[in-house]
């Protein structure tokens, strides 16, 4: 992929010597990693390698697991994500997330997108309408739903539901969007739409995506990180990872020798 080497890379999320534990089990070992602004960073690796744990650590979605804890440093614009005075709610407002399975709320299409604003106290119908429209357009869903905004979100297809979830995340104007295997439950056409969408969104957002699908990582991302057994094996420009990896384990994985 083109990766715009002309622009300087600005670090958005920087992780240093970062380890994560579920109780006594260590899921991540001393990860050093930087996610750059307005780039798409893909995380690949076999199941259980820690890539999802890593992604979910970045907006503190793992806080709710009994016994989860982290060591080391993870910063968002230089501010410690796990700092003692940090409110995780504020982190999640800046770092949005879209999950593997579409998880719309049991509400109308409109209210799904408006939810994040409502909980921030936005009441004005016209403000809500504007942002809902803008977000649905950004998620390439507007034309398909504009005539049935009050219809149930469950009436949409799986691919549409996932784009609705992306619109919902965009509505609160996050700086970073984390995508946890966003297309793994979708058909190829829906997947292609999500991938196109990511390219559109890249101009304004920093995107990190976990994917099982190496072709997808190669197609959409600027940088790719390969995780194995809770360690970060290698991170580099996507073209470099897929054509000339430095680590033999990366090469074994991307050539399909295991995983």
């Amino acid at each position, binding site marked *: 992929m083109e990766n715009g080497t002309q622009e300087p890379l600005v670090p958005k999320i920087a992780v240093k010597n970062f380890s994560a534990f579920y109780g006594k089990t260590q899921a991540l070992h001393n990860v050093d990693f930087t996610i750059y602004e307005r780039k798409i960073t893909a995380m690949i690796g076999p199941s259980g390698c820690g890539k999802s744990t890593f992604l979910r650590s970045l907006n503190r979605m793992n806080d709710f697991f009994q016994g989860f804890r982290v060591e080391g440093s993870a910063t968002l614009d230089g501010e410690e994500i796990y700092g003692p005075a940090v409110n995780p*709610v504020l982190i*999640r407002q800046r770092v949005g997330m879209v999950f593997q399975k579409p*998880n719309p709320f049991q509400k109308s299409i409109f209210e799904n997108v*408006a*939810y994040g604003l409502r*909980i921030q106290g936005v009441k004005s119908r016209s403000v809500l309408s504007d942002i809902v429209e803008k977000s649905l357009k950004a998620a390439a869903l507007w034309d398909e739903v504009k005539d049935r905004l009050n219809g149930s979100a469950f009436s949409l297809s799986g691919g549409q539901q996932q784009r609705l979830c992306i619109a919902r995340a965009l509505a609160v104007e996050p700086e970073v969007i984390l995508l946890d295997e966003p297309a793994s439950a979708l058909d190829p056409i829906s997947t292609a739409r999500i991938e196109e969408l990511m390219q559109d969104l890249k101009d304004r957002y920093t995107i990190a995506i976990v994917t099982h699908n190496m072709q997808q990582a190669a197609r959409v991302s600027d940088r790719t990180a390969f995780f194995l057994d809770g360690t970060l094996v290698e991170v580099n420009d996507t073209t470099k990872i897929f054509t000339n990896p430095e680590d033999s384990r990366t090469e074994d994985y991307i050539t399909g020798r295991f995983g």
Partner: protein
Amino acid sequence: MAENPLPEKGLSAYRKVRNALLGSLTAVAFILAVTPLLAIVYVAYDRGKAALSLAFLTTMPGGFPVGIEGGIANGIAGSLILIFIASLLSVPVGIWAGLYLWDQSHTRLAKITRLLSDLLLGVPSVIWGVVGFFVFSTNTGFGFHWGFSGLAAGLTLGFIMIPIVTRVTEQALRDVPRSYIEGALALGASRFQVVRGLAIPAAITGIGTGILLGVLNVLGQTAPLVFTNYYNTGIPKSLVGSNGSVGDLAMQIFIYIHEPSKELHVKAMAAALVLTVIVLLLDMGIRLLAWGSRKYAQRMG
């Protein structure tokens, strides 16, 4: 010629017989399960229909033995008063406790609470009655000394209801998919916003069912009332003290059936039908309420 290794298409005789057998067993089980309800309604109606009238619902019992004349307005009013007091105590406490058990499910305090709550579910109602009697009715150091009264009985019934509401609320919240909760958290919702705006609305039918189960349990309780309230042929002015007993449908049926009077037996059966109809109406009411609040939550944030 090689023999066809596959059996003929279609079901074998054995499977046909087995299907028919299991199908009829299911039908029998279904009939056995619904027969009691039909039997209750039929018997109560057949034996009580002579006493049924609008006046039966709206007049107080009179004559001698008391109840020979008049209706069961005292029992209806008293049962509703008891449900009201019991719900006032148990619904907020039970829902709050259920939320706690769900939210803090792994903490030691939650585990102890859950265990104790389950133990309470198994306590026989006669024991609730005796304890309620000592705590609320007598002057045994708790300082209440409310006598046989609506308040003593209502609170005793409320305590019986708490563990029911607690456990059903917790279970209903557990049934809300985790992905749903995570979706809201990822949008920057606080824990409280998630609970109020998503988890409770998604679980409201279950929570409503829990309250209903509690109320139905309370409606049918007789043993605790023997010790904490007994019975009143009228409607009391106060719910505390020596004249604070309320009427109660379950007690009324119990007392009427024990009277050596055919007329009272008929009235007991009519009262039983009324009690059954109240249960059905409450059931429908709660379901409507749950449905309505879900609609409301879908529109609101």
